[in-house]
């Protein structure tokens, strides 16, 4: 059985792993690299719980083969806080209680961070469309949106 030797960067660290061709990047992150912050929801690209960044693009890690990511730069939820210092989005999600069960939260934080890096001043409509691929089955969307919009304002210094 062929196993693929892959070297990539995860949250700025060089990593190497062996993976089967059937393993997705999500499987690799969780089972090989033990970065279990990235969650598996639907495993078919519908729910966004497994969102990560690859070379600066927001993607579902369940729709990426582990073998594909050689030399790619991957960012996961584990890289979001700076040591003990939470990212402003993480802090606002706590302040607003923008989570219930929390399963969708890592994916939403990654997706929201990607939005604010690209567009520091989104309208609520833009933010809702951007996050339309992140499902929260506790239906906490209103608090999530308030947390994202308030973080954006704070990061703009308003």
């Amino acid at each position, binding site marked *: 059985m062929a196993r693929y030797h892959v070297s990539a960067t995860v949250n700025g660290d060089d990593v190497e792993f062996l993976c089967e061709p059937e393993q997705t990047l999500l499987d690799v992150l969780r089972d090989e690299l033990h970065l279990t912050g990235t969650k598996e929801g639907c495993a078919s690209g519908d729910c966004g719980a497994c969102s990560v960044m690859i070379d600066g693009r927001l993607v579902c890690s369940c729709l990426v083969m582990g073998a594909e990511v050689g030399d790619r730069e991957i960012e996961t939820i584990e890289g979001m806080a700076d040591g003990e210092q939470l990212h402003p989005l993480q802090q606002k999600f706590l302040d607003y209680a923008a989570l219930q069960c929390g399963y969708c939260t890592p994916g939403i934080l990654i997706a929201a961070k990607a939005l604010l890096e690209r567009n520091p001043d989104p309208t609520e409509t833009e933010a809702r469309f951007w996050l339309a*691929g992140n499902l929260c089955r506790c239906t906490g969307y209103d608090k999530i949106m308030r947390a994202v919009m308030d973080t954006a304002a704070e990061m703009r210094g308003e």
Partner: protein
Amino acid sequence: MASDRVNWNGSDVITMRYEAPETMEAAVELLSSDEGARVLAGGTDLLVQLRAEMIEPSLVVDVKRIAAMREITKENDGIRVGAAVAGAELGEHEEFKATWPGVLEAFELIGSTQIQGRATMGGNLCNASPAADSVPAMIAAGATATILGPGGQRDVPVEDIAIGPGQTSLDKGELVTSFFFPKPAARTGDAYLRFIPRTEMDIAVVGAGICLTLDDSDICKAARVSLGAVAARALVVDEAADALIGTPVDEAALAKLAEAASAAAKPIDDKRGTKEFRIQVMGVMARRTAEIALARAKAN
């Protein structure tokens, strides 16, 4: 060859090989070498099908390491878009956005932001879903697909690639490498609209791609109309285009367009919509799409 390992759901795992060639020629050689080979571009359909065990390829050929398939290049008489360019990448190309807003809006309707980070037009075409959003828009734009295979290279109109659900006209070992969008005549506008029962994140119940060109006195002198999700493949409907040509795209012409679009629709009944509903809405969407294309043509 079945292995002794078992999959997450207890089924046998078929040995699957992964290759990421760096040239189109190497990709074609790999695809030709293995009956069970599948192309991996954005993976947004392939990985779902793998997971659902709808397919069990023995070889997956990842084409994203082929630089030419990820480039958008300006040529003298048009723009060439690599078949493995992701939606998010095409959306950042200002010239393409300005030239083919209808194609771009169709492509960008596919899935979420996450899906847009990976999904490709080559994949959308070759997955051959009758409801593929980018396909009617590409057909309306008059795009051609460049195909490389063991027998060499050929250019084929986009409408000739998908032949039925999940089926293409590609021969063994052939790979769609890029799409060519000819430089539009002055005063040309294109548009794509689909009907879905919600705002976003859904599959077209019907879709319409229309591209039209006006003369100096605002009379439509050329038009292409393509309809999606109302037949086994995206349709090119000359009768619908003829309803616009020679007219100022006024109410009478739009009514004839709607009638021709509904007449051409041969949809199925399914959970997304009944046959009768699809036929009726096809006409409505064609008319609305033409109105957007008209406004864009006047602005160009």
